[in-house]
């Protein structure tokens, strides 16, 4: 079925539970328009990874379950799908922490991404060359064992591997975690390039609010399993509350969104 709507991903009011008792997401709704980059921002434990795993249907392997709401990908519900079917439909997740296959070479890692596609040897080589044109650094290291590459290279391997599955949409879970600023910029440049040249829609979970928003079209901020704020990347970057809470431009100590909202409503009452 073709999808004429402008959103490739449409999450409506989902609630997620782990082990039938732990409520990880209360109420998350978000949309990813086709061909756009959307950032999902929030602190540790806010529910970013859980949201991504709900979309890629990888929750089941962690005993998680979407208990309310709906997720539509490319116009169809993903309810009955499993992770390998989702990859077949063009939705690939790059897991948090890179998760390369350490004993495989860099090139074997990347080729493994094409597992779900039926490609001849020649096709694979052609695809590889295309992938290497984005990840020049990996081409030099193609014969090295992945476990012995640097953190930045491993992140590139993980993204390159996902690209090998020819995704329509990528879910990136904290791609810059633990990387030096220079590498963070390099990774984001590649992500942006993949988005523009390959037309891949991207949902990006990040803690690195500033650089994530600078490379996105739209952003959602979640806290304790709830969407607290959303808007275009530009509007979020210029939002005073976001500046104060997530960009570290503040006179006072750390607060979270709930405190700010509470303060605001108090102020309203006083006025």
């Amino acid at each position: 079925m073709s999808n004429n709507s402008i959103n490739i991903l449409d999450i409506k009011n989902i609630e997620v539970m782990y082990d039938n008792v732990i409520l990880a997401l209360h109420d998350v709704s978000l949309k990813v328009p086709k061909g756009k980059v959307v950032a999902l921002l929030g602190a540790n434990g806010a529910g970013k990874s859980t949201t991504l795993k709900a979309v890629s249907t990888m929750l089941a392997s962690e005993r998680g379950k979407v208990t309310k709401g709906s997720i539509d990908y490319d116009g169809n519900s993903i309810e009955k799908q499993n992770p390998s079917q989702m990859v077949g439909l063009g939705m690939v997740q790059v897991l948090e922490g890179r998760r390369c296959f350490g004993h495989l070479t860099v090139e074997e890692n990347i080729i493994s991404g094409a597992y779900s596609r039926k490609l001849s040897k020649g096709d694979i080589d052609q695809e590889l060359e295309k992938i290497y044109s984005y990840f020049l650094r990996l081409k030099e290291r193609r014969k090295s064992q992945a476990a012995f590459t640097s953190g930045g290279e491993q992140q590139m391997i993980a993204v390159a591997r996902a690209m090998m599955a020819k995704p329509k949409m990528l879910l990136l879970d904290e791609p810059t975690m633990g990387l030096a600023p220079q590498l963070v910029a390099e990774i984001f440049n590649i992500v942006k390039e993949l988005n523009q040249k390959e037309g891949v829609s991207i949902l990006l979970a990040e803690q690195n609010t500033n650089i994530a928003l600078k490379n996105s079209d739209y952003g959602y901020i979640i806290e304790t399993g709830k969407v607290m704020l959303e808007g275009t990347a530009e509007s979020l970057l210029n939002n005073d509350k976001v500046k104060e809470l997530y960009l570290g431009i503040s006179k006072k100590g750390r607060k979270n969104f709930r405190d700010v909202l509470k303060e605001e409503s108090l102020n309203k009452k006083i006025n």
Partner: protein
Amino acid sequence: MANELLFFMEVLVGGLLAGTMYSLVALGFVLIFKASATFNFSQGAMVFFSVLAFCGFMQDFNIPFVLAFILAAFLMVVVGLCTERLVLRPLMNASEDTVLMATIGLGYVLEGLAQAAWGVEVRRLDLGIGDFPVPWIADNLKLFISALDITAGLVAAIMIIGLFLLFKYTKIGLGLRAVADDAGAASSIGIPLKHIMLLVWSAAGVVALVAGMMWGARAGVQFALVDLALKALPVLIIGGFSSIPGAIIGGLIIGAVEKILEVYIGPFFGGAIEGWAPYVLAIFFLLYRPEGLFGEKIIRRV
């Protein structure tokens, strides 16, 4: 002096070749350990089940050797299929310990099924290869080496080369190595875990069949094969649970060491130390090199 050296060589070569029989059994364990990080306690039962079925096909139905082998191998693929569908898939998100317990249960089911289908008496298996010294080698090299041992060595070598090629150069082999490294990441890029599980369980089944045929030809096809497979445990502790070369070399070491100890040190203990000497060796490995000779180094962050 020359005679003593010759005798030592004979013990050593005999031991090494006998060790390949252990290697064959250990190979089955490694395959499954690689894919699911579980020690498959039913491997011994799979050896017994497969070779008993093979004997049954040959002796009860008069099916020729090659066809009986193909049928038995096919049966093991079916067993792999059922195991994946009925045992592994429902336990997909369960802990490794749960899967371990399930393999013990699976072992009992296979033992029971085998005996229900083919009877409980010991069967003789004649592969047409005698378990006696090869005259040509005895004449020319003055070594007394059993033809069955040599065959087992050759068969083990062929299987290892076959498995190596399968893992290194095929797509499904790449998938298997990916799953062995990180099953979660493998599933995130669309490698279907159930296909990989089916592959390893079938391969382990066929390896069990070959190992069973070798052991059955030597010791008779009987229930004791189940326990004999546990000899693979010290082999794996020495070689490393996740390494195919480790299984081979571990088997060779166990085979050689137990024969040498039996001949030279055995008399001081009143003989028959072959049965427990490998376990003593295994304990030393557990103390000083728990990952085995070729196992993946166990890295833990402190």
